């Protein structure tokens, strides 16, 4: 018995190999379960029937600083959560890497930046990030009430760290949400994400 267990453990170890995956627009968004800063678990499937926004985050990344420093990200969060959209901010920074947060640190960071996501999810092992193919902070995803991915990519069309660029940019996330909420197809369904690399 004991030896069979050894064998099973060996096979399990040998076979746990990472697979390359990415979320594809027009297809079901990959399921995940992540805990928020208070230890509460959140699954994508539990938000069926609602629009969900995923925002990959690392508060120390200059591109994230641009969108929080300008108030752009907070404005999006407030505007769309008021319309019933679930806004999930995901942090995939591994322990010891830039932007990694302990659950206890999250509330302070959110308050400091006046961020207002529905939940701040911790993904230190990068499982959810890799399942979505999240490459940059920020990297944005919009999922419709049926669980289909309708937008993946950059937050807007001005890849820079310059706060002044926020004003004149086309915000792809706001546009996708406005169109989808109005029952229209999303005109720009994907774009090249820009930002710092996710610190897996």
């Amino acid at each position, binding site marked *: 018995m004991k030896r069979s267990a050894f064998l099973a453990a060996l096979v399990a170890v040998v076979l746990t190999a990472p697979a390359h995956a990415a979320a594809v627009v027009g297809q079901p968004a990959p399921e995940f379960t992540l805990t928020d800063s208070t230890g509460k678990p959140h699954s994508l499937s539990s938000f069926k029937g609602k629009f969900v926004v995923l925002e990959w985050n690392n508060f120390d990344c200059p591109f994230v600083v641009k969108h929080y420093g300008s108030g752009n990200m907070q404005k999006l969060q407030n505007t769309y959560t008021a319309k019933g959209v679930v806004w999930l901010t995901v942090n995939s920074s591994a322990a010891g890497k830039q932007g990694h947060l302990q659950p206890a640190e999250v509330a302070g960071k959110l308050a400091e930046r006046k961020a207002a996501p529905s939940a701040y999810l911790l993904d230190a092992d990068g499982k959810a990030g890799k399942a979505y193919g999240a490459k940059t902070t920020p990297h944005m995803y919009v999922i419709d009430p049926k669980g289909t991915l309708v937008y993946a990519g950059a937050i807007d069309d001005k890849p820079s760290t*310059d706060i002044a660029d926020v004003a004149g940019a086309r915000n792809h996330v706001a546009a996708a949400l406005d169109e989808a909420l109005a029952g229209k197809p999303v005109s720009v369904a994907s774009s090249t994400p820009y930002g710092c690399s996710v610190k897996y």
Partner: protein
Amino acid sequence: MKGALLLLSALLAAVPASGQAASGRSKHVVATLVPETTAVAPGQVLTVALRLEMEPEWHTYWQNPGDSGLPTKIRWTLPEGFEAGPILWPVPARIEVGPLVSYGYDGEAWLLSELRVPATAAPGSSVTLEAKVDWLECKEQCLPGKAQLALTLPVAAQAAPDAARAAPFARARERLPRPTTGWKGEALAGAQAIALSISEAPGAATPVHFFPLASELVEYAVPQEVTSAGSGFRVVMARNPNGGALPATLDGVVTTADGRGFTVSVPLREGAADAVAPPKPPAPAAPPAGTGPSLPVALGFAFVGGLLLNLMPCVLPVLSLKVLAFVKHGGGEGGALRHGLAFAAGVLVFFWALAGALLALRAGGEQIGWGFQLQSPPFVAFLASLFTLLSLNMFGVFEVGESLSSVAGRAPRHGLAGSFWGGALATLTATPCTAPFMGSALGFALAQPATVNFAVFTALGAGMATPYLALSASPRLLALMPKPGRWMETFKQLMGFVLLGTVVFLAWLFGRQTGIDGVAALLLALVLVAMAAWAYGRGTASEASGRGRVLALGSAALLLCAGLALGMSQPQRATANAAAPAAGGLAWEPWSPERLAELRAAGRPVFVDFTADWCLTCQVNERVALASPEVAARFQAEGVALLKADWTLRDERITRALAEYGRQGVPVYVLYGRDASKPHRLLPEILDAGTILKALDETL
């Protein structure tokens, strides 16, 4: 120190002077505008370089930055009539950041721009050229960098080239992708892959990588499949599923083994969904005829290797106890031979399972080779826990009911099954030893077709099972063994210490993979595992009461799980292939295909050492042969660049490079001569100073 130098150079350069370079700096990058000529001439073109000098490990980006990053931008403010062309981007490098891949530059990059001087520029006057430069500098973290640079140059009838700058500008132009007018080809996009096929590529050496210009076309981190075909080549890349509409042309730069780059622009069209198969790891290159052993020889070696495995410190204790039990009981039910056969079956089935798992993973696209089992820190932790448990079992801390190593006087309860699992366990305990001692032989076998592979693994297993099988088959041989007695218990306990020695090796390896904190956690995990064994032993002791037994067994299970979880959850270091400490006074650089190509292009002889901490052959070669004074002196005298590719942890680039040399395991030693057109030379796996010196004589 480096920072201070950069600051100093920035301060010096900030002194404005006519025709001089203008500098600015960010935290980790110094940006300088360098004009090619000391003056501008009316109606001519002035080339200006933006020189970016980056601190070690910091980089800036190409026009398509890959998975993350931003291209460097120059915004010119020029006098009336001047026109600035776009940046002429030098050939980029592939920069790996965790599981992501970016395209950019490290060290020093020269971004050239061509400025058209109007014919109306008046000789005798002077012009000021201003550039606002923005870049993103990243190591692991990213910082935006910017500089406002101004150059003031006199206008003269003739612009005299600045002799001091001729060489760096020539080098910078050398780094630009070459035009490819004579090339023919096309690109086809399937559902999951994009294939670039160039049928004729005059002037190009072996292609290495294709850097696409379009930002969302391919998955940068998926290894490309690059194959030479006739006078051209083919590159298969994974298509980005969110790539959107397909551009009409596939544009980019292909780099070649000699470090050069070529501009590619071919028509791109959608093919049938399955017209292009997604990239898979390159088919293992068949080793050149005559260099590898023939199949019978390989099988013979594998058989002898299997025999020797019985003497390895990982296997000897387990196996010798099995033999002792045999001596004691003279077999068990069903006759001795049947036990021997069951044991052999256990060994073989487990070897096949291991080979099968490896082949399946490789077919599934994993870039792994032999030794992969020791590249995984969780598996190393698991083995260390297993060996600790086995040694405690030998010390008598606990007994397993159907103990395969039971010499306590009972016959094994499940005789034949016990022998089968005994064989399987012996193979499992052999896994850490096969990599260090036989990595290169098995690595060679893995480069062969699957059937050959299985034959070699079968021969290895047969060799390992033979001594036991022989004992079980021949009562006369068995009679030669010492008579049972108290010495058996002593011997068993002694063997427990041999196993603990193996734990020390595994802990050292684990430390190299995870760091000192990882080792501390592993040792704590082993203490928990040992406590679990002890609690189990207390609980199963005949004098234990019913409640005490439940408590002891429950805590044993908990402790075992906690120990395994702790040991197996330690995060590994980012990469093992970092700058290696100098051995024997030699300066080794970390290997990368780009660095190798660069050195080769510069005409430097290069010695590449593919190694891993868990590979004992490698360690011995490095300490005995590579670090010997004669070899070190010769390396230095000849100016041989030394590159070390450390495969201690999984590294797909190294696995692919090994495959290109026809190998699937370490050690591999490769020597490149000064002449880039001559082929490289592979050195034997077992090195001595004489062999290296002789190879240097013949190659350089």
